[in-house]
């Protein structure tokens, strides 16, 4: 019996973990390139979810198409927030101002969504939520399989993009040294914009996949963001491999805490882990030292 439960929760852990990874990857990409945090990232997740919901249920479109819509909505939001907030504030040089500005955006977005959509959860049902496979005594819904499949493919593509393509390498170059990258003919502004677009598109997409398995309210993103931040820190700011690893770990921790302890303790456990990491290894699981230039 216990092995079944352990396996079941492992699957759940991977499902949620891979979604957290998608959200966290966006945050870590932005940090890697710009050393900034977009606090409204979570609300992009929520808005992506709502976009997918309305596209599906108002226009009767298919689920996969809705995921694509959420992807595009996320991309648009990413472009918008870079253009309106991060680019103008970059000239001011204060490293904490953009974060504060995005907190304002987050508060605005959440409460606007609250006004438009109301606090009552939306039932985001897809044709896959109820179809279940059964093997070795475990139940896996097609929804879960889709999530794992789409996430893995996306993460793999992103990883390959970062490691092997010119643009991907350029992104890493810009994160190491913006001036030199600029001198080498790479336009940092364009790359930063691209980073935001990709990162936020991932967030939107994650929202579309999360909504059927979580509760869809204007605060859906918030429940994820706090874990996403934890993942980014545990995995190491700007570190893609670390984030993937940390995301899966957090997903698994969440499942097992829910099963064996108490769901209310999840946040506490994850954050206790975060604080412990900050003490012993603040640069993250897979250390990547960034010496401050004096």
């Amino acid at each position, binding site marked *: 019996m216990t092995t079944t439960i352990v396996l079941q929760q492992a699957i759940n852990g991977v499902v949620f973990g891979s979604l957290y990874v998608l959200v966290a990857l966006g945050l870590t990409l932005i940090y890697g390139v710009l050393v900034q945090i977009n606090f409204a990232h979570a609300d992009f997740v929520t808005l992506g979810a709502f976009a997918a919901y309305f596209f599906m249920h108002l226009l009767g479109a298919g689920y996969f198409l809705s995921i694509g819509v959420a992807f595009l909505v996320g991309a648009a939001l990413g472009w918008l927030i870079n253009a309106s907030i991060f680019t103008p504030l970059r000239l001011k040089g204060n490293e904490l101002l953009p974060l504060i500005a995005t907190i304002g955006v987050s508060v605005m977005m959440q409460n606007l969504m609250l006004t438009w959509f109301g606090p009552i959860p939306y039932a985001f049902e897809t044709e896959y939520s109820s179809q279940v496979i059964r093997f070795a005594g475990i139940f896996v819904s097609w929804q879960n399989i889709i999530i794992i499949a789409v996430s893995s493919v996306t993460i793999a593509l992103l990883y390959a993009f970062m490691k092997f393509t010119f643009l991907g390498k350029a992104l890493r170059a810009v994160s190491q040294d913006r001036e030199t990258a600029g001198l080498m003919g790479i336009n940092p502004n364009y790359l930063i914009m691209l980073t935001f677009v990709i990162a936020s598109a991932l967030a939107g997409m994650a929202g579309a996949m999360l909504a059927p398995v979580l509760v869809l309210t204007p605060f859906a993103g918030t429940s994820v963001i706090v874990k996403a931040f934890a993942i980014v820190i545990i995995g190491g700011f700007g570190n893609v491999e670390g984030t993937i690893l940390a995301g899966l770990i957090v997903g698994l921790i969440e499942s097992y805490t829910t099963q064996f302890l108490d769901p209310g303790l999840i946040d506490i456990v994850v954050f206790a882990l975060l604080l412990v990491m900050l003490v012993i290894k603040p640069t993250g699981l897979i250390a990547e*030292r960034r*010496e401050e*230039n*004096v």
Partner: protein
Amino acid sequence: MTEAAAAERPVATGTAPLLRAQNLHKSFGGVHAVFDISLDVPTGSIFAIIGPNGAGKSTLLNLISGIYQPDSGSVALDGQDLSSMRAHRRVRLGLARTFQKIRLFKQLSVLDNVIAGFHVHHKIPAWQYVIHGKDFARDRQHCREEAMRLLDFFGMSARLNVFAGELSYGEQRMLELARSLATKPRLLLVDEPAAGLNAAEVDVLLDRIRTLRGRGITVVIVEHNMDLVMNVADRIMVMDYGRHLFQGTPSEVQKNPAVIAAYLGGELS
């Protein structure tokens, strides 16, 4: 800088070097920034560390001032081992420094920047930070006057109330020096002071540094431009690729073939 203030500091005894670094090593990610560097800086002298860009000079300075901890080796100030001390504690022993990339408090005025430098020298009982009594007023007055004297020494009396961020580059350099002198150091580390200054400004700068030596402050200058230090240094150490290349008087350094090779086509006069 008043003679009285200079006299407050204990004078180093005999001919023991004020600063002694021994076998310093520092690597970053497998690359040796500093490899087996030792140096002795006699009290009251001007000691220059020169080398091409990337030679490890700034890293060495960071090791001495305590921003980096060495992988091995030691640093001692007037016989006192500094190894376990973090940067801010070394200031109390009389070690001050300026930075290659100017780090002023841009939102503060020129005067306030220098006053900030008196941090380790305030003599105010704790309660008077809340209820500003006599000692508080006296300390404030003293700090103001000292700060103005320091700024006068650097010719900045006319700019007291200007925001540090609005100064010209040369003025910012002077301000940085004035501020570091507020800590009443025995040893002053100056990191590439001439970068970005025109010839006239450099002359003034070097002249001020000579005057400081005359008042008993030992100065260590890091520079990549050898011409500059020729006229002011008592002793020069040349670094290249993190290693010790040569050490000697300015004329010896100028004639040394290894040094000339390292500076191929560089800034030799």
